[in-house]
């Protein structure tokens, strides 16, 4: 038998592999022959293991070429596991330990010491991390990229450690590090002059920070989301600073008004992206009129929840001709006239967000279809006045449409029939559209085979047949929302044979039972997230099936299910990837059941939601162990109410 590698050298094979992005395709490729496996081994730069067990083997296999390691989805990762699994001579440049709540500063110190070339570290959402962890990370002196978002205990001292230790930092995210103040930011700016991207969203810092930040010579991208203490004065500093910003996000800054935005637009002439959503909604027109100074450079503009008149949109349309994305969500004044002015000028628009623009009618859709043929994403949630007429025009003209959100738009089967002409459609959201029935879904199932995400939330007219049509047509679905579609029964679920489905929401589907879940689990083995809240008929049998077939399940909601202690123990003990379980109001589970189940899963869980009453009856030692392993427990005090 001829060895294929004589024809297809490893170099060529590597080039082929460059074009393969899907993990399944790569897996198939690995399985061809030893030579293919070897090529894949040499080619691979990044891995993202789902479990800790195979990690040492994987790392040994890829040690030479591997540059990026993502451990964010590994459960029960702690210091010893981390230090044991990383081989000593390695070329790792980037490590992600996001949500690795079991790791402490000791593990981080080991990581930094064994990875001398490390350039990027992500420890975001490790909520217990503080200055000591930041100090451990700060020993990586070649670090260029660091994310410590939501490390809640990091203070100015920790930031100072990082600033002094990692002076080559180019990207830094300190979102939600509430303890950091102006003093820390000031020191950071003095020490890290290479910073290009900075995210200080939701920090309680004031204008003084912006005065410091404005002196960063290389800063391009600045995110200031929800900084409530910033106001126009801070933006004035930015507009007069050394930095040449390309992107700024001041959304949700309550005290930023159009005055500040205007000065910013005047001072920073190279701005490409502006997000001013949810700012103080006064004097918007002056700001918009100043946008003409930015003119052609601007490509993304988000003005959510601002008061925009038709004339303001006309100015945008006339001046920002290269606009690629516009966000007008919840802008009260937006109407058909404004949209037509806008799209007439901005013909390159690819993403248009008109969420909750209640005045928008079919006329807007017609003008969009006429002017912006390249539209890929269209967000029309709650635009109640649109109908199949407008959507028909969109589907006809904008053949490249990939995402459309029609939640709560009262569309019907005819609209879906029109939309099904967009064969490139990836995301379709038609939640709360009670007019959609199986007929409409069958159009989608027949034509939109590339669909990745489908939202049918409360589409109560859908029955098993509709679901069957979808399952048969859209084999690549990754995300499916069937919440409260209460006509669907086990028969419908048994049609779900979607190999790639990872996210499934079945909340409030009162007719499904464990047999349906079993059939679904057999068909959808890649599930990582499953919501079974208020599926009152699901019992231990369903848990057994999930434990057996959906090995990768990471997030599970089984509140209100009739699961007993046995089923709970089994599923929590068996699923090796499980990290987040919501189990409120499991009336059939005894205290001992909870106790045992939690013990069985101890070390893996990062988030648990339990009934508040259990707080006092569960053994304190167990709760302490859980918390020591980095598990956050949310106690819920909701009354037990059955809804159907």
């Amino acid at each position: 038998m001829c060895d294929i590698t004589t024809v297809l050298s490893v170099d060529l094979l590597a080039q082929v592999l460059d074009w393969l992005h899907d993990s399944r395709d790569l897996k198939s490729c690995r399985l061809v022959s030893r030579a293919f496996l070897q090529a894949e081994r040499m080619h691979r730069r990044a891995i993202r293991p789902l479990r800790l067990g195979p990690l040492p083997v994987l790392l040994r296999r890829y040690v030479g070429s591997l540059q990026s390691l993502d451990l964010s989805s590994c459960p029960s990762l702690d210091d010893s596991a981390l230090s044991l699994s990383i081989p000593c001579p390695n070329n790792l440049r980037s490590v992600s330990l996001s949500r690795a709540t079991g790791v402490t500063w000791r593990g981080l110190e080991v990581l930094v010491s064994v990875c001398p070339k490390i350039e990027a570290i992500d420890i975001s959402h490790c909520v217990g991390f503080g200055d000591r962890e930041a100090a451990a990370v700060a020993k990586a002196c070649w670090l260029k990229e660091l994310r410590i978002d939501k490390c809640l205990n990091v203070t100015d001292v920790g930031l100072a450690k990082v600033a002094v230790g990692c002076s080559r930092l180019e990207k830094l995210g300190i979102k939600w590090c509430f303890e950091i103040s102006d003093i820390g930011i000031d020191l950071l700016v003095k020490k890290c002059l290479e910073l290009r991207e900075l995210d200080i969203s939701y920090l309680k810092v004031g204008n003084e920070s912006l005065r410091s930040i404005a002196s960063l010579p290389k800063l391009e991208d600045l995110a200031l989301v929800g900084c409530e203490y910033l106001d126009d004065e801070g933006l004035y500093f930015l507009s007069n600073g050394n930095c040449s910003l390309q992107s700024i996000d001041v959304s949700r800054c309550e005290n930023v008004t159009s005055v500040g935005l205007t000065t910013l637009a005047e001072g920073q002439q190279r701005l490409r992206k502006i997000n001013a959503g949810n700012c103080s909604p006064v004097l918007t027109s002056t700001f918009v009129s100043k946008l003409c100074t930015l003119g052609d450079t601007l490509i993304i503009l988000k003005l959510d929840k601002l008061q925009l008149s038709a004339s303001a949109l006309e100015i945008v349309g006339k001046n920002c001709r290269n606009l690629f994305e516009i966000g007008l969500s919840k802008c009260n004044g937006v109407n058909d006239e404004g949209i037509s002015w806008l799209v007439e000028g901005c013909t390159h628009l690819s993403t248009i967000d008109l969420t909750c623009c209640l005045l928008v009618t079919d006329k807007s859709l017609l003008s969009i279809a006429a002017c912006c043929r390249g539209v890929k994403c269209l967000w029309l949630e709650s635009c109640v006045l649109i109908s199949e007429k407008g959507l028909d025009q969109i589907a006809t003209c904008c053949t490249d449409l990939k995402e459309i959100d029609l939640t709560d738009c009262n569309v019907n089967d005819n609209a879906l029939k029109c939309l099904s002409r967009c064969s490139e459609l990836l995301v379709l959201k038609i939640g709360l559209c009670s007019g959609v029935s199986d007929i409409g879904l069958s159009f989608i199932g027949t034509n939109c085979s590339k669909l990745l995400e489908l939202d049918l939330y409360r589409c109560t007219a859908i029955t098993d047949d509709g679901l069957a049509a979808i399952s048969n047509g859209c084999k690549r679905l990754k995300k499916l929302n069937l919440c409260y579609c209460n006509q669907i029964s086990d028969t419908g679920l048994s049609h779900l044979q979607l190999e790639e489905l990872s996210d499934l929401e079945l909340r409030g589907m009162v007719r499904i039972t464990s047999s349906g879940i079993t059939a679904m689990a057999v068909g959808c083995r890649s599930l990582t997230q499953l919501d079974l809240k208020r599926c009152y008929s699901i019992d231990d049998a369903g848990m057994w099936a999930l434990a057996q077939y959906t090995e990768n399940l990471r997030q599970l909601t089984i509140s209100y299910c009739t699961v007993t202690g046995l089923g709970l123990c089994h599923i929590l003990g068996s699923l090796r990837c499980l990290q987040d379980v919501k189990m409120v109001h499991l009336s059939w589970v005894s205290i001992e059941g909870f106790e045992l189940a939690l013990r069985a899963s101890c070390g893996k869980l990062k988030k648990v939601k339990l009934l508040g009453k259990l707080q006092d009856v569960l053994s304190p030692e167990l709760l302490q162990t859980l918390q020591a392993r980095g598990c956050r427990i949310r106690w819920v005090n909701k009354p037990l109410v059955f809804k159907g």
Partner: protein
Amino acid sequence: MDQKKRSSFTYPPRNNSPQESFNPNYDCPQFNSQNRTESPYPYDTPSQFFNSQSREWDPHALLLNLSFLEQKIHQTQNIVREMIRTNEGQNCNISELTAQRQLLTTDLTSTIIQLISTAGSFLPTIRTSLLSGNAPITQLGSSIPSASSGLSPSAYQPNPSPDYEELTKGWGENGVESADQIQIEDLDVKEGEDVGQDGDTLPIGSYEVLQLEKEEILAPHTHFCTICGKGFKRDANLRMHMRGHGDEYKSPAALAKPAREPGSQPMPVKRYSCPFVGCKRNKEHKNFQPLKTLLCVKNHYKRSHCEKSYTCSRCNTKKFSVIADLKTHEKHCGRDKWLCSCGTTFSRKDKLFGHVALFQGHTPALPSDEVKGKNEEINDKDDSGGVGYNDGDEYLDMKGGYFSPMVNFDSFSFEGLDEFSRTTFDPTETSFSFLRSGSPDFARKDPGN
């Protein structure tokens, strides 16, 4: 108030009656005795008279002055006679004797001064030579305490400083008046923080140098009850205490603060020497830097020459000899200590971060990081005085306790302080106009005496 003014500042009749010459403002035991023949009568009125006349020479005034001097010499003669009489009686104690000597000396001094001033108003050309002669006269006064070392400071109360001051002012308005202002600042406690530091450019010899003994500096109480001997920090407390000893101490006049006559004049410039030989603050030192106020003396002596007996209860390492220093330290000691990796500590985070920003490689230390080198002792705070005395308590203590033994002989030191300083600092009014408006009555009345 009016009543009191009259009693203390009307020219006292020379009839040697203790009853009449008794000044209620004196709370010093020495002067309450029966043997005291002379009250330290204020010389204000004649001197004011001189001064008001000093610009234009008036023969009537000269005559008036001379007759006043004559009276005064008679009066001094009386004192001497009294002394001889008591000596013969053998029933005097030493302190009384010294007090009398004291009185005599001051009387003579003032007589000399007045004689000179009279001559000065008559012969304006001798001004300069007189001014240079000021210092020895001052020194004369300062030599008194050393002569009567066993005595409490109040022994030389009768030093008639106000009129002396007034006299010198009359001649050398420029030099001496500015010195007055500095002194007034000293009395003002809030401004006392930087005393001794603020470019105290008084030429040597232009001020009096006083030196207290160690025991006096460290004495916890400075006011003693003449009846039972109980000590107090504050004069006001003593007055309250005195009520218990009889109804005569309950009169409003006895309970009131020792008042200062608004027309009275500031004391001569005083500076203090530390009794510790070899100290830069000791007058024997070749680069002697005098201390400005009594509080400075007290704090300097405690900080520099005493054991540090107050230990911080938080860190158990820092020791202080002045309790207010301890209090100041305790405010910053402990949890909010900001530490750099180099071992330097800061009381404030922004200071630490400023330091870190300045030096390459320094980082803020985490709470449990090893401290490599601790800067154990901060250098002693400035010797010169009440650093950090913003405490209300200290303020009171200082007012009542530290000053009154020295100055309450003039009885004006605190009561009249406010109006006094107001008048003196008022740039629009010269001291002359202040005098004229204050005391024409006295000037007219005096010759009658």
